C-alpha cells in the first residue's frame, strides 16, 4: 500500500511554516484522512474476502468431495464384502469362530477407515501463517490488544506484540496438527503390530474365504485395492 502513504503528501501544503494553529489543523486533517483511508481499506478487504470465498467455496467442496469419496470407497468395498460373507455365514449356520473372525475384520476395516478420515481432515491445508500475518498487519487490527494492556504504543510495538501473540497461536495450531498426526501414526503402528492395514485385512479375508469353502472369486472385485 505504498501509495496510501503518499497521499497525505498531496494534501499537506508545502508551506508549513505559517502559523502553529494552521499547522495543527493540517495534522488533524491528515489524521482524519488516514483514519478514513484505513476504514475504507478494511471495508474493501472484508468485501473482498466475502466475494473471494463465495467464488471458491463450492470449488473446494467439489475437490474435497472427490478426494474423500475416492479414498474411502475401497474401505467400503471391503466392508461390504465382509458383511456379505458374514450374512452368508449366518444363513448357513457356520461356526461362531469364523463369524467372530469376520466381525473382528470388520472392526479392523472401521479402524482403518477412521484413521484415513482423520488424516484427510488434518491434511487439509491450514491458512498460510505469513499471509494471515500480512493481512492482519494491513488491517491494523492490533489497537484492540494494546488498549487492554495500557501500553503507550508506537506502531512498531503494536505490531511486534501482535505478531508475538499470533506466533503463539500458530504454534498452538501446529502442535495440534502434530498431535493428530502422531496419534494417527500411533494407531497405524499399533495396527501393524496387531491388526489393520488394508493388505493385512485382505490377506486375512482371503484365508477366511478358503476356510469357508467358498471360491476366492468372491474377492475378485477387491484385487484393485
Amino acid at each position: 500500500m505504498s501509495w496510501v502513504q503518499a497521499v497525505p503528501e498531496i494534501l499537506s501544503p508545502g508551506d508549513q511554516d505559517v502559523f502553529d494553529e494552521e499547522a495543527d489543523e493540517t495534522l488533524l486533517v491528515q489524521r482524519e484522512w488516514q483514519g478514513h483511508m484505513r476504514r475504507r481499506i478494511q471495508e474493501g478487504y472484508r468485501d473482498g474476502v466475502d466475494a473471494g470465498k463465495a467464488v471458491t467455496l463450492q470449488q473446494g467442496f467439489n475437490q474435497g468431495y472427490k478426494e474423500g469419496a475416492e479414498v474411502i470407497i475401497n474401505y467400503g468395498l471391503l466392508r461390504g464384502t465382509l458383511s456379505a460373507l458374514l450374512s452368508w455365514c449366518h444363513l448357513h449356520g457356520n461356526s461362531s469362530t469364523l463369524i467372530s473372525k469376520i466381525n473382528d475384520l470388520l472392526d479392523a476395516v472401521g479402524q482403518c477407515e477412521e484413521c484415513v478420515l482423520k488424516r484427510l481432515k488434518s491434511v487439509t491445508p491450514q491458512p498460510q501463517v505469513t499471509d494471515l500475518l500480512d493481512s492482519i498487519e494491513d488491517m491494523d487490527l492490533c489497537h484492540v490488544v494494546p488498549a487492554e494492556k495500557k501500553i503507550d504504543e508506537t506502531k512498531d510495538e503494536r505490531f511486534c506484540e501482535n505478531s508475538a501473540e499470533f506466533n503463539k497461536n500458530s504454534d498452538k495450531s501446529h502442535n495440534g496438527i502434530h498431535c493428530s498426526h502422531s496419534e494417527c501414526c500411533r494407531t497405524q503402528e499399533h495396527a501393524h503390530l496387531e491388526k489393520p492395514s488394508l493388505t493385512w485385512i485382505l490377506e486375512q479375508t482371503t484365508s477366511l474365504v478358503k476356510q469357508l469353502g467358498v471360491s476366492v472369486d468372491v474377492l475378485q472385485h477387491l484385487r484393485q485395492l
Partner: protein
Amino acid sequence: MAVEQDMFDTVVMADERFHGEGYQEGYEEGSNLGIVEGRRYGTLHGAKIGSEIGCYRGFALAWKCLLHSSAVEKDSRKMKVVEALIALLQHFPYDDPTYERLHEDLDRIRGKFRQLCSLLNVQPDFKVTAGDSGLAF
C-alpha cells in the same frame, strides 16, 4: 489548472481506490479460505458417500458370486435383483457432488439394496449414516 484538477480527482476517487485495494487483497485471501473451508466439508461428505456406495458394491458383488457358486442358492429372482443393484451402482458417479440426480439415484440404490437384503433374508449392519449426503452445504 490541470494539476489542480488531477489533485481534485485524486481526492474524489481516493475512496474508491482505498476500497478497491483492500478488496483485491481480501479477494485473494478469501479465495484461499474458500478452498480450504470447502475442501474440509467436501472431504467429509465425499467420504460418507464413498463409504456407503463402496459397501453396497462390495456386498452386491460378493453376493453375486456367492449366489453363482452355490447350487442351492441359484435363485433367478435374487440374481436379478443383485444384477440390478450392481448396474445402478456402476452408473452412479459417486465422486461427483454436482451430479443432478444424486439424491434420486441414491434413493433408488438404497431401495434396491433393502429389497436385496429382504430377499436374501439378511440384515447387514453397515453403520451407514443415511440421508446425510449433500450436494452443497
